[in-house]
């Protein structure tokens, strides 16, 4: 209890983000025909949190003053939550009442990660030099509108062209405290983690071995990357969860899954440059699976856009578009420098054994090969046990493979020294692919555990939760 105030202030910010992103869950709930199951309520909470992050990011991109963004955001969030609370008896409960077991577990998980996130100072290279240095610039210059320091060649190491979702969030927290140090801005990681934890409880229906697998693989698989200030683990987890929701949408055709998948992908898009690659791979995967799976083809978003889906698609793009225009206007260089010269570098490296070096780094040193192997082993076991696997089970793994191919090309075309670039980054960049393979592996394990579907679980879940 004596340490409670040290944690509580972060938890108090979570309703701010849920309130900011409330419009999407409300929109989906209005179109949801049946009472929400408890795991769907967890998904609603995750959707609200992730959408809130995107709304906050969009405000931060459009308005320069962090103080104004926080006050305006708080007004909107409070108004939304109060409106929902007074709309009808238990309306907040009907939306987010995922059951005390899930709330307690989610709270405990966040609390456990609070320790290293809040009380270990920023120490690792990218965290100090990129994400939190950018946040420091935003904090001290009072917003993102002053180009002076962003184009200063002395700060070229900070990769100013990287997306600003995390730096803006960290700068806002420092602004609220009125000071900058190496601890307070790190609370932004805890705020990013909350929708992930809720999203995981939105995926699993019951406490089973496959649920233990998913929670363990996702939350422990990234190791210290979840608390040291790097953004890669968060990119991987948002991407992995997005692929899981989209796979479930391909299989079950639920509007809630589609919108949640799109919003989680939107957070990934605005978190790191690799988010663009993940989004491109996911869209390619959706096209392929859209034609493979009859149900998905009928409701493919490009063919049948509901207002909620449209809003979900639009929300990440506003912030992304605003930052893309800003970095064009500021003429910020991209150190990967993909362009006409890239082909020349790729061809040169093909002759110098580059494919072997990159392939080995991605699959062996990065660990993507082991994750893919686990997924294939699970699929083989499912085959031996004659478990029918929906086509969508393969969707995250296919996207992960496409992402690996994309990474392969990026490394082959890098203007940096190849071995140095691989040594300093591959263990982090490959996390997205690992999350994709683990996502597919979970779907296989879930199918093995319950080969006839989860009708029993659904019945258990929906009991006592009238809409």
């Amino acid at each position, binding site marked *: 209890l004596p340490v409670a105030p040290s944690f509580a202030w972060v938890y108090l910010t979570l309703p701010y983000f849920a309130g900011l992103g409330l419009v999407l869950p409300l929109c989906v709930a209005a179109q949801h025909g049946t009472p929400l199951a408890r795991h769907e309520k967890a998904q609603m909470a995750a959707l609200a949190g992730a959408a809130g992050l995107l709304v906050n990011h969009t405000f931060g991109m459009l308005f320069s003053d962090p103080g104004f963004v926080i006050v305006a955001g708080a007004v909107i969030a409070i108004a939304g939550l109060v409106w929902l609370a007074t709309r009808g008896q238990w309306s907040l409960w009907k939306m987010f009442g995922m059951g005390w077991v899930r709330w307690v577990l989610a709270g405990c998980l966040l609390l456990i990660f609070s320790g290293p996130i809040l009380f270990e100072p920023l120490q690792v*290279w990218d965290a100090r030099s990129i994400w939190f240095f950018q946040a420091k610039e935003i904090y001290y210059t009072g917003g993102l509108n002053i180009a002076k320091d962003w184009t200063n060649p*002395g700060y070229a190491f900070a990769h100013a062209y990287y997306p600003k979702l995390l730096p803006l969030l960290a700068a806002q927290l420092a602004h609220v405290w009125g000071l900058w140090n190496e601890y307070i801005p790190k609370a932004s990681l805890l705020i990013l983690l909350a929708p992930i934890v809720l999203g995981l409880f939105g995926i699993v229906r019951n406490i089973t071995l496959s649920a233990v697998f998913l929670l363990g693989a996702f939350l422990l698989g990234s190791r210290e990357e979840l608390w040291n200030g790097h953004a890669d683990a968060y990119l991987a987890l948002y991407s992995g969860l997005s692929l899981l929701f989209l796979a479930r949408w391909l299989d079950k055709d639920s509007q809630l899954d589609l919108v949640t998948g799109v919003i989680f992908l939107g957070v990934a898009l605005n978190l790191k440059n690799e988010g663009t690659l993940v989004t491109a791979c996911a869209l390619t995967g959706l096209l392929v699976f859209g034609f493979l799976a009859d149900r998905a083809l009928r409701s493919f978003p490009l063919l049948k856009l509901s207002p909620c889906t449209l809003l979900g698609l639009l929300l990440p793009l506003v912030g992304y578009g605003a930052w893309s225009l800003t970095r064009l206007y500021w003429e910020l260089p991209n150190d990967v420098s993909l362009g006409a010269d890239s082909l020349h570098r790729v061809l040169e490296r093909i002759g110098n054994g580059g494919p072997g070096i990159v392939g080995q780094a991605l699959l062996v040193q990065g660990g993507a090969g082991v994750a893919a192997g686990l997924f294939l082993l699970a699929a083989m*076991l499912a085959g031996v*046990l004659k478990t029918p696997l929906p086509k969508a089970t393969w969707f995250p793994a296919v996207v992960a493979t496409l992402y690996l191919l994309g990474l392969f090309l990026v490394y082959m075309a890098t203007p940096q020294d190849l071995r140095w670039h691989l040594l300093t980054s591959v263990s982090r960049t490959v996390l997205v692919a690992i999350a994709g393979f683990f996502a597919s592996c979970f779907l296989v394990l879930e199918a093995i*555990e319950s080969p006839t579907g989860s009708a029993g679980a659904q019945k258990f879940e929906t009991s006592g939760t009238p809409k």
Partner: protein
Amino acid sequence: MVFSKRIFAVCKAPGMLHWLRNGAVLVIVALTAVVVPAVTIAPDLLFKFYRILLPNRAVIPSDWRKARGGEAVLPKKVLVMIALLRENDVREFRYSAAVVHDPDSSVEQRLAEGAYPIRLSNVARHWLLSVNEPLGAGCVALDSREGIVLARCP
């Protein structure tokens, strides 16, 4: 043949199939726990949290709520340079190649990001130099500490 047929028959029994399914999932979970390796990360994470709950809370840094708290993670040389800049109210600075030369640590970047909002500038009047370096024409040494000099140049 008879024996193998019996095994297959046992495996096909409904109860046994249930156990086989759970066993298959357990194998994957166990392999993942080794590969991740969750078996070492989870206790480490729990221990990090447990230390916070200890009565003296020694693990919570005393400066975590203070401005500039946690700066101690920077290399000592960088801390000295930042102290020189702050104590002399410098707003913009530049540095010599010699003063940031340090093969064992990344002094250059740590100085640039650690000193911020004191800005790096190619036209700054204040210089950080190594004590062995000659001052430029018209430059005046303002302060020095542990082999590092802060100079103001015209």
